[in-house]
């Protein structure tokens, strides 16, 4: 086969092969809990697809203390003292995945938050899945 020289016209009829047709965003999820000192919460979020379709997801998460505002974001908000909180995760849950029999049509993530010494606080959790799947129309059933 002849190689394309620098003087040749480049082929323009090549279809772009990208992920745009498979890459979707879920609706925004949220949760709120009140935590007093030493109280804890485990937040599990999931995204699932009809069982015959695979799904691969990434969970974008934000946690706010008191109300939704940039200064209240944990971590990093200027009004938040991170030493008053313990956060473990978020993890994509390996155990949940296995107990479902290697389910390829569902993703789980888990986040643990413990109020060490911030006093009674409202904790607001927001998330949005970005996911790859052969079709849109994800569900959020466990």
């Amino acid at each position, binding site marked *: 086969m002849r190689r394309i020289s620098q003087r040749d016209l480049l082929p323009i009829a090549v279809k772009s092969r990208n992920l745009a047709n498979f890459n979707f965003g*879920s*609706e*925004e*999820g*949220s*949760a*709120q*809990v*009140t935590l007093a000192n030493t*109280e*804890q*919460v*485990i*937040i*599990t*979020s*999931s*995204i699932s697809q009809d069982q015959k379709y695979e799904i691969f997801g990434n969970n974008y998460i934000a946690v*706010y203390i008191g*109300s*939704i505002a940039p200064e209240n974001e944990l971590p990093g908000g200027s009004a938040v003292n991170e030493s008053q909180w313990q956060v473990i995760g978020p993890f994509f849950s390996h155990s949940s995945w296995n107990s479902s029999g290697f389910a390829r049509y569902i993703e789980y993530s888990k986040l643990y938050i413990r109020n060490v010494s911030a006093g009674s606080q409202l904790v*607001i*959790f927001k*998330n949005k899945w970005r996911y790859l799947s052969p079709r849109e129309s994800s*569900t*959020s*059933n*466990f």
Partner: protein
Amino acid sequence: MKLTAFLHTDGNISVATEGIKISRGTNDKPEEIEIENSIPIDKIQIKKKGKKLEITSK
């Protein structure tokens, strides 16, 4: 917006949109109640009155 209210074993109430579960620890066996609500979740206030949940906006 479909929400789920979680009535936790320790008496606390939390709330989450579809696809999110809340647990307050290994001993927690929350009772889950689905509710339809149009109030943004950060403005919602849920109280238990007897056996009924009262949902109000802050």
